[in-house]
């Protein structure tokens, strides 16, 4: 990586541009995409930056092509990404599954807007969280992050590339229109302060190398690239350790279990959360992405009013921090889950706790404001417990 390409410094920058600079700082040198609001600024910014740094910007004919070309570039060794929003995310699902199956690292940014369908192109939403988890057909582990500020959009872009490479997976970065378009201070660190976890690369004989053999405990096989002399075979069909198709239930069981298990087994690298005011909390508010900003304010005000409320911010939405939620559940009376959709993440919370979980929801189109979250906190505090779903 050439450090001079990293624009170390302080900027007043929107989230989409911060993501693009984060990608460059992470060493991404390939962007394939199709413009769509509110992610377009990422494409625009990279179309001007990539030519400056010897990278590739290619504007594809659609999002199926975008996803495929990103995988091709990554298979040839490049850190590669695309960026989109709801309608394009749906089209990418096909090859997000291929990325999971071929174990080709890449970054897919979804700056969420109001949905379903064309929905609200210029306005925010958070209703793609379950699509992110289950969108492509079949079982596979998923890692998805949700930034709440332009700075975090930058940081998580870097982190997502690291996770993608380290675990040989497509990482999904689920921003939303608010975070994509808002302008805030963004500090781009010095090159040597930017964490870089490379790909795990094969060692030993090229002839003996099996591209899907997971020798290590983390269940991640080393990744060889096209043109290196390994005579690789990659397929979306169920395959054995050599990568050869094997149409058997046994091989399928082994392969798919590993795709799921390699994510489950490594929570330390993957799960990220942040907590505020948990001391003495009887109620915990949970939120992610831009909604977490409103939740943060609501919790602060509630604390000022003497209510025993704490806050958990999900930075990784997948894997879901179920362990932490279960631990919190030992000490609290109720949860409040705030999200800009009609109740998706709340199902995850409910799966792991006995206590009532009150949802604060909005279909999208405007940021969920602090007031309804505060009201929910007060309602829960006054009732002792409640569930309104």
């Amino acid at each position: 990586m050439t450090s001079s390409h990293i624009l170390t410094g302080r900027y007043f920058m929107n989230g989409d541009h911060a993501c693009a600079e984060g990608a460059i700082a992470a060493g991404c040198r390939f962007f394939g995409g199709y413009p769509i609001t509110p992610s377009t600024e990422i494409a625009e910014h990279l179309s001007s930056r990539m030519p400056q740094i010897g990278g590739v910007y290619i504007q594809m004919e659609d999002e199926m092509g975008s996803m495929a070309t990103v995988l091709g570039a990554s298979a040839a060794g490049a850190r590669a990404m695309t960026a989109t929003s709801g309608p394009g995310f749906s089209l990418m699902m096909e090859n997000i599954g291929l990325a999971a199956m071929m174990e080709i690292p890449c970054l897919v940014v979804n700056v969420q807007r109001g949905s379903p369908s064309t929905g609200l192109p210029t306005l925010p939403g958070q209703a793609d969280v379950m699509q992110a988890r289950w969108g492509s057909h079949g079982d596979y582990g998923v890692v998805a992050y949700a930034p709440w500020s332009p700075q975090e959009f930058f940081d998580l872009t870097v982190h997502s590339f690291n996770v993608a490479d380290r675990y040989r997976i497509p990482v999904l970065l689920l921003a939303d229109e608010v975070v994509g378009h808002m302008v805030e201070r963004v500090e781009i660190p010095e090159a040597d302060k930017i964490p870089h976890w490379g790909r795990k690369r094969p060692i030993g004989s090229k002839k003996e190398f099996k591209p899907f053999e997971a020798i290590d405990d983390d269940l991640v096989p080393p990744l060889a690239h096209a043109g290196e002399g390994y005579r690789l075979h990659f397929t979306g069909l169920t395959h054995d350790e050599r990568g050869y198709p094997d149409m058997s239930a046994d091989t399928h069981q082994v392969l798919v279990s590993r795709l799921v298990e390699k994510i489950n087994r490594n929570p330390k690298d993957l799960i990220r959360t942040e907590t505020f005011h948990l001391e003495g909390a009887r109620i915990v508010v949970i939120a992610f992405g831009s909604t977490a900003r409103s939740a943060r304010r609501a919790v602060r005000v509630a604390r000022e009013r003497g209510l025993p409320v704490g806050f958990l911010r999900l930075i990784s939405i997948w894997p879901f921090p179920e362990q932490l939620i279960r631990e919190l559940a030992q000490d609290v009376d109720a949860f409040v889950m705030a999200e800009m959709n009609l109740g998706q993440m709340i199902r995850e919370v409910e799966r792991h706790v006995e206590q009532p979980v009150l949802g604060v929801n909005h279909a999208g189109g405007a940021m969920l404001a602090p007031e309804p979250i505060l009201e929910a906190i007060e309602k829960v505090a006054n009732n002792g417990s409640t569930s309104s779903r």
Partner: protein
Amino acid sequence: MVQPLLVEEHPLDGLIRADRMPHIWCPGCGIGIVMRCYAQAIINSGIDIEKHVVVSGIGCSGRVAGYMNIDSYHTTHGRGIPFAVGLKLANPELCVTVFSGDGDLAAIGGNHLIHAARRNIDITVICANNFNYGMTGGQMGPTTPYGALSTTSVYGCPEHPFNLVNLLAAAGANFVSRWTTIHVRQVIDDVLYAFNKPGFSFIEVLAPCPIGFGKSNDLEQGVDETLLYRERCVHEPDTALDKLGIDLREDQPIYVGRFVDREAPAYQPIRLEVEK
């Protein structure tokens, strides 16, 4: 009595994944011949075998990626071309070939096909055209001739097929040719030519599919379709592009040859500063 001749070595040893044989193709299928031509072109190319990469979509033709003993990517249905574009742009040293079927390339992947040709990306596409979706059991597709029978056109195909040569020429490919499985030498030559030709090259090879297409169209055996090629093929490279449509029902010629060979600049990502 005829003595069997035992050969120690086959010229393609090392290029075919012997551990994946037997292949899935039916007796009389033409795809293997086209793959054989591609493999021969790789040998003749003198380009380091490690730099050759083959990408396929899904279909019987798409299985080629699984049988070639080079870096090979068997992608999703229709997406071979954009995957190949990513490989090529990320590592321009690679000699990237897409080997796939008519349905994969021209139906579900049709948009990628014309746009890669429009951009004139420096890859080679070999299309095994068997006039149907062989893999799924012989449905009509974008190249099925008008009136031909298939499992989803039991009263005769009501649609007009693509004239792929004309399509690719209009889209902007630098090199476009059409041959059949009887034109082994020409196919090898053109694939080889395409490897070295900057820009987008498209080689259509008509291939018998006795199971999916032949049996419902009076071409019961692979050899029947092969004989039909021999009778009908006309090598007239100067034929107007819009006259190159294929109609198997009537006593129409099947035009073969190199139809487009031009020197438009190949796609280059914009570079303001070249990284060493």
